């Protein structure tokens, strides 16, 4: 390894976040580099392509102010690593895992490669433990389970941050005495949004069991590529080596994908849809698939990625590819938000794919699945009838349809709507569900088994 300590002054090209170093020896793909500027500042880079003696290096802090003649590049003979320690709890880091708060330096227990290795599907344990978030539309209709990845699909100006913070604050399993931690990964969000989370974590004391990685909107965009990997490496360490149940909040994936597109464009790669690179799916999956449980281990990683859909368009590549990888999605709806309903969760297109394994007798309650199906179908029918009424007028609706319209309105008002600090137990959510179902004639409740109707249908 002759080249390790050697410094190269052979930068030939700088374009976007990339620079080309020539005449290098012994450099490998994925290796980290220190880039020393004339003024003594050091930036971080990573080898994206190595061709003979030419290395293409991606500069995380950006290339602004770089002059090819003055730069010295040193390759570090290792990939990107994070020094991990249990002392990371309660601390704030940047996209490279460097502390940015006033606390002392972290003394790492060990260094872990941030890219991780793919989890062997054979070693995975199926997520089936119910997490109570205290939010009816999630708990009852789109149940979150430990080890799941369930994103919030939102749009600009919608209260997804509030919802994500509320989930982080309230999430618990019905068992007690388990260790719980939050890893918060902020990519390119504004100072205000970030402060909102930090203040919320401080207010509730959650900060003590949180690790925060923050890259703000004015921080270097390329750092956003490294950040979620740092955060997930910390999460894996806490979950699978320290037996903690880790909730990872990734916000905002749209900014991450844009950083990825920036690099791809600078490399002149053949673009896929909307200029995003063809490997966007693969790249996203290497983040999302790091959620899960492992057989024989206590801890777990549950992910709540948040993304803002450009123009609220679900078919945009970022939400689209995310939806294909994650186990469902919670849709935030602009219309409901305009109506003043919080949380504005659009129930019909929302979905939790893993809900079936986490609900029912012994987990939540025996009637959970039936109530869920009935609420869905009744709400869907009410919405359909409403649309019909818009075209034809209310008089065109049958008596039953009018009941369903009333149901749909009440459902949004009483079931969907809840306070930002309202932490409903699953029993409370079920109770509200049954009260709403009682607005409908019993013979319309076809999705609920008779035995449960008998037992739970509110007596007037």
């Amino acid at each position, binding site marked *: 390894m002759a080249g390790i300590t050697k410094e190269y002054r052979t930068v030939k090209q700088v374009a976007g976040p990339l620079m080309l170093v020539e005449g290098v020896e*012994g450099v*490998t*793909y*994925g*290796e980290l580099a220190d880039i020393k500027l004339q003024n003594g500042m050091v930036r971080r880079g990573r080898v*994206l*392509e*190595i*061709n*003979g*003696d030419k290395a293409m290096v991606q500069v995380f802090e950006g290339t602004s102010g770089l002059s090819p003649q003055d730069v010295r590049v040193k390759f570090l003979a290792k990939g990107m690593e994070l020094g991990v320690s249990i002392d990371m709890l309660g601390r704030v880091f940047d996209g490279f895992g460097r502390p940015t708060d006033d606390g002392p330096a972290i003394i790492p227990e060990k260094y872990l*490669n941030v*890219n*991780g*290795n*793919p*989890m*062997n*599907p*054979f*070693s*995975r344990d*199926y*997520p089936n433990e119910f997490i109570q978030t205290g939010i009816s539309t999630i708990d009852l209709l789109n149940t979150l389970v430990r080890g*799941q990845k369930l994103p919030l699909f939102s749009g600009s100006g919608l209260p997804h941050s509030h919802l994500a913070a509320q989930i982080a604050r309230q999430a618990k399993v019905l068992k007690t005495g388990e260790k719980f931690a939050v890893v918060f990964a902020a990519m390119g969000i504004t100072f205000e949004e970030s402060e909102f989370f930090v203040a919320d974590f401080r207010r509730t004391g959650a900060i003590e069991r949180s690790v925060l990685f923050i890259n703000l909107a004015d921080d270097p965009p390329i750092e956003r590529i490294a950040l979620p990997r740092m955060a997930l490496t910390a999460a894996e360490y806490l979950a699978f080596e320290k037996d903690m149940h880790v909730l990872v909040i990734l916000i905002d994936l749209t900014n991450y994908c844009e950083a990825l597109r920036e690099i791809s464009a600078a490399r002149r*790669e*053949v673009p*896929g*849809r909307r200029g995003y690179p*063809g*490997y966007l*799916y*693969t790249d996203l*999956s*290497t983040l*999302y698939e*790091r959620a*899960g449980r*492992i*057989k024989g*281990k206590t801890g777990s990683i549950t992910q709540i990625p948040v993304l803002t859909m450009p123009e609220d368009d679900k*078919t*945009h*590549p970022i939400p*689209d590819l995310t*939806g*294909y*990888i994650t186990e*469902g999605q919670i849709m935030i709806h602009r219309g409901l938000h305009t109506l003043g309903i919080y949380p504005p969760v659009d129930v019909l*297109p929302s979905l939790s*794919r893993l809900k079936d394994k986490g609900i029912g007798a012994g987990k939540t309650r025996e009637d959970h699945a039936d109530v869920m199906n009935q609420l869905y*179908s009744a709400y*869907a029918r009410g919405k359909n009838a409403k649309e*019909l009424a818009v*075209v*034809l007028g209310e008089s*065109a609706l*049958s008596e039953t349809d009018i009941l369903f319209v009333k149901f749909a309105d009440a459902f949004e008002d009483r079931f969907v709507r809840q306070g930002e600090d309202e932490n409903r137990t699953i029993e409370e959510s079920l109770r509200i569900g049954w009260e709403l179902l009682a607005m409908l004639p019993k*013979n319309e409740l*076809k999705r609920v088994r008779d035995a449960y109707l008998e037992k739970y249908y509110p007596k007037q």
Partner: protein
Amino acid sequence: MNGDKGEVIKVSGPLVIARGLTGARMYEMVRVGEANLFGEIIEIKGDDYSIQVYEETEGIGPGQPVVRTKEPLSVELGPGLIRSIYDGVQRPLDTLAQDFGEYIVRGAERPALDRSSKWNFNPVAKIGDSVEPGDVLGTVQESNLVVHKIMVPPGRSGIVKKIGPVTGNVDSEVAVIEGPEGLFSVTMVQRWPVRDPRPVAKKLMPTDPMTTGQRVIDMFFPITKGGTACVPGPFGSGKTVVQHQLAKWADAEIVVYVGCGERGNEMTDVLMEFPHLKDPASGEPLMERTVLVANTSNMPVAAREASVFTGITIAEYFRDMGYSVALMADSTSRWAEAMREISGRLEEMPGEEGYPAYLGSRIASFYERAGNVICLGSEKRSAALSLIGAVSPPGGDLSEPVVQATLRVVKIFWGLDDKLAFSRHFPAINWLTSYSLYQNIVDKSADEHLDALWSTNRKRAMGMLQREAELEELVRLVGIDALPYDDRLLLQGAKIIREDFLHQNAFDERDTYTSLKKQFMLLKMILHYYDEAKVAMTAGATLDSLLSLKVLDDIARAKLIPEDDPGQFAVLENRITETIRELTRK
């Protein structure tokens, strides 16, 4: 000069370019770098060999060695395949987990077939027999459901010189054959390059239906043994559940399930569920007939590209034994994306949406490996390989290249509809846009063997559903009250077909599988209600009274009538007749 060992020149993601491999061939496997990573040569330009590497390439750099294996990407075929779970290049994931831990580490290598398992070989051929390719030399009881046939490998023939009962691992010699080139030894294992289809004696037209226990499929869009189908749909429309249901309940003797670039937890689901589910025909756990190939989305993209070929080669091998095999690939879009990614790195001229120009021909040649066949061998065994591919079109847009290239070759289209999924109608197969070109074959078979009314009832029901769609549009314009009563009754009939026949709950123990016989009775009973109601209406019964009959609840629950109690359908039909006639008697 032949170079057995070359060196790395360039690394860009999963693509490595090496020099000094003179004599190496296209699609030959090589080992790359100090980490000994798997790779495959996919392009040769002068002395530059482009290699797609099946593992993460971090730490690989110029000057590192590349070693030839002189063999194309191949799979091991022999006893021990059943119940296995492999990655895209046939590494056994269970053994890797045991030996290397919960994460898949680079360079990890274990034989695909466990060498510590012992198998009992029972000879079928005798000394002195003249054998040709595909002839069965003997059998091995591989699982409770599968008798594994040890066959003369393709391209080999001769006179059996030595054969007898053997107990040992797959490498044990079971026979010696004297061929034109001299003596050769046959073990329980064959190797076969995955990109070459295994040869058959003859391809035939599909003739037999493959039942799946899924009402909308078996009744309206049936598949045959040896048929090809595609299941496109946006995310959340239930592609994977449909694929899982087929893997569970399709009446194939062997099922190969390829999880190609999909979720890790889904594979775990299969791994945990299949050992507990019983095959409806034999009562044995489904795992006893299943081989899994799992290359989840976060596993290396090049191995994902290979995974569908690994899967279909294993499927072909069981087909060659004379079995009816079904392969599910979920999802072929991820496979196509892997091709696009590699193609982009090779700087090939892109076709539509960045996909390589050869996308269509690759997809076509993959689906063409399915079919109803006469296998190699003097027995002339007949066998079938059915292929069902899920497609995940971006944004659910069916005009995108992968869906279009697939539709050109497959015979069945099960179009999943997110509107249906939102209203929790599962399986969300849209009955208006889906089609099966095997309909006639299946109709004929069902009319002959099950009930002469099968196809008649099917056509009536489909007619009602199509009419419903037309009427719905009308209702949207003028309101339901403007429709004549018989049309409104038809809407009711169609609604019952939708809710009580097409809708099927995959997670309900009893509803998850419905035999053809029960499907027939269920539909017959629904049509019976409609016919009786129509008669009653002309005799003066009001529409409202017909729509609010208590017996409708019984109709809704009829799908839960146990398979072994078909008498209940007759009782129910009588009750329908009576309660409806009651209305006009008053």
